[in-house]
């Protein structure tokens, strides 16, 4: 089948898509956007988190045809309008040491973006609830909490 959709603000088309493919496979293998990760491909780890029409989803659980005509935003599309190349969440993850192997990181950054859009100053308990669907095997999460707190504080500085 032919798939036509919008990825990070650009109209895209993929041909000869097997209807059993996931949106994750299409992004990674057909769109050349491997930033969205593939740690479990069954909705358990959150490493494949993307926005689908503004809603955070696991791209591994979305069948490619379900993306037809819709808008997808991936980690590669997050920082397009910031000058330094990183948005404040990405910057906070680097600065706090929240990244080790980094395989969980794109998903966590997407989930943090979604959290802070809805809850600009989350409590620790709210951060934990919001990120409970994102597995990280390396960090023990402490520095991820630091990163989210730092990103939230900077965000509120910018938009009081």
């Amino acid at each position, binding site marked *: 089948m032919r798939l036509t959709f919008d990825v990070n603000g650009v109209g895209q088309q993929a041909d000869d898509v*097997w209807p*059993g*493919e996931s949106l994750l496979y299409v992004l*990674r*293998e057909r769109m*050349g*956007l*491997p*930033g*969205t*990760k*593939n*740690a*479990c*491909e*069954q909705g*358990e*780890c959150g*490493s494949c988190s993307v926005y689908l029409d503004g809603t955070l989803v696991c791209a591994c659980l979305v069948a490619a045809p379900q993306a037809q005509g819709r808008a997808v935003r*991936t*980690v*590669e599309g*997050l*920082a397009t309008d910031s000058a330094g*190349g*990183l948005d404040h969440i*990405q*910057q906070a*993850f*680097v*600065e706090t*040491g929240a*990244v*080790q*192997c*980094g*395989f*969980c*990181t*794109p998903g966590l*950054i997407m989930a943090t973006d979604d959290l802070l859009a809805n809850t600009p100053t989350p409590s620790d*308990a709210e*951060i*934990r*609830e919001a*990120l*409970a*669907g*994102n*597995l*990280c*095997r*390396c*960090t*023990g*999460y*402490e*520095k*991820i*909490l630091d990163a989210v707190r730092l990103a939230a504080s900077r965000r509120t500085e910018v938009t009081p």
Partner: protein
Amino acid sequence: MSVPTTQRPTGTETATGRLGDITLLPDGIPKVTGDFAYSSDLWMDDMLWGVTLRSPHPRARVRSIDIGAALATAGVTAVLTHEDVPGSKYYGLEIADQPVLAVDEVRYTGEPVAIVAADHPETARRAAAKIVVDYEVLDPITDSRAAMSPDSPLVHATPTQDHYPGGGNILRHVRIRRGDPTLTADVVVTGEYDVGMQDQAFLGPESGLAVPAEDGGVDLFIATQWLHVDQRQVAESLGLPEDKVRLSLAGVGGAFGAREDVSMQIHACLLALRTNKPIKMVYSREESFYGHVHRHPATMRYEHGANRDGTLVYVKCEVVLDGGAYASSSPAVVSNAASFAVGPYNCDNVLIDGYILYTNNPPCGAMRGFGAVQVCFGHESQMDKLAAALGIDPVELRIHNAMAEGSLMPTGQVVEGAAPVAELLRRVKDAPLPAAAPTDSYDLRALPGGVSNTTHGEGVRRGVGYAVGFKNVGYSEGFDDFSTARVRLEVVGGELVATVHTAAAEVGQGLITVMAQIARTELGVEQVINQPADTSIGTAGSTSASRQTYCTGGAVQAACEAVRDGILAMASARGLSVEGAALRDGKIVAADGAAVASVADLLGEEIVEETREFHHRPTEPLTRDLGAPGDIGQGAAHLQFAFAAHRVVADVDVELGLVRLVEVTTAQDVGKALNPLSVVGQIQGGTTQGIGLALMEEIQVKDGKIRNPSFTDYLIPTILDTPPMQVQVLELGDPHAPYGLRGVGEPPTISSTPAVVSALRAATGRPLTRVPVRPEHITGT
């Protein structure tokens, strides 16, 4: 050679930082933007996909394999079996006992039998399903203690080696005897303890891209822990000289021991050479559970004898580890389990037997902690039990017996340098305790069961538990453990640039950051480029055994010193006085602090480049039991010891068996924290993996089959399961080690498991002799 589109050098760093500074990871930026190329992200225009057909049986004879229907499938380019392996049909880290593809027998569920290349992964999977394998199914050998019996059928009919004492299914038996274990004591406690099979559960799946080369060789882009040991095994099985099998490190999504053994490396190269196309292989999460070795499950029997004042008189321990179907690194794991069976305590009379068995269970091998984890659960459970029997505070009992500098290991090895066991315990004990749970109000999120609303505080008890552990850093028992580094200093675009090249695997621990810090510190440069790791330079050894900063850090330091000597020699040849000078801020700085010359001016167009190896101090094999009287299993087998202690505070719903950890405190001596940011990150992450083993992580194996090969059923700690952590870092310095450092990665994983269980015992009063602890163990139902 063509380079896959997403394979890019790590490039110039923007990060700065010298040794001891909090230094940000240079690979952090591509990792947060999604640009970092992991092994599963590689892509080439004309590549094909490889998949693996695996055995559904734990033990069966292979009568025949029919690949006809698979090969006839549209889109399929190749289907290979053991007959297509041109070189060695067996491989292994230490003992080549594992078939590349099953030959005449399969020995575990999930063993690779055939491989398929096709133009789409789904096409390859469907074709693999059409391969017809005629199995004669045999009764699997799955009980490790039963497998020890001389009457047991054999997993390997003709054992491939017998250089370890053992025999039958016993792959290795390590005997340690020191002093007089026939003594009696005032108080004796015995215990039996079990540890379940843990998975490393790294997030980045086994994957890579094999590209056929014009010279008949192959280039493999791979996530691994040790490029050169992969290279040797791949070359042997391909029947190629090593220089025709070139490996480059692709981005590694975590490792924790699971990437020490070869997974898809040989398979992808076989398919690439057969099809003459690049081959990409990526395991699914389910396949990953079959595709790498796990932490050995253990059964342990202990007997501790002590005087009334708590002094240990003797310790006896028998530990049986289930090695599964193939050897992997099992001989070294059981050696560690035996070495560390008593824990970091003084005891002059020891009797230790460590066994590791072949069975038809999934193969086990390296995982963070490497044999020390299992016995730490055993000896720390015993110390709690002994403290209760004596009526002594469990921390005081440990401190009373704590090893210190100059203590003797059960192997007779003298513990050199700082061994701050008592101090680590005091530190975690003295750390402020978290506030008590409020009695007048509750927040569901702070209670066991969380928002599932299982309790409002009734039935919830708080417990506090402690544990301490240790293990070796670096490879032991006489292994020549070393690393190689090349460092170049030159002027590029008017700026002084150092380039560091090693084959060491960065797996997320922060090694390349430390390498750049060393170069900045030693050479006084700002700009450091880490050249991507590959096999065009000599081996770096494995990213395991907490050894990589020690060994590769030592090699980078040695190469930097050689480059500095070269610069100083150039200066001296030009008549400058450089006696006692160093390189700082781009200048040669004399001993009195005066700038002698600018290094960039001195170099001009010239390049100074040096390659050095760093070999750590030799270690000794353990003495064997040759029938002679006297102590056995003795020797200075280990390079360095690293220690950590934990305190865990847990709230336990004793009616429902649910647990919520309130806080974990870790104290660890790291010798010298080269990058404090990464050191703390390692301690927090390692501690969390130990929490997982205590509370939830177990590969369920029944009749030789894994019952839970998914993240739905194999649970690792989420951010909700992981409590706030206090970390105390001691820097006591090891005079033998580069910069005084001590390996960091493994110790935090070792003692966190028994500390959690100790807290649960304190809350419930139950013995809890098995990890992971299940709700029914807590409730006693």
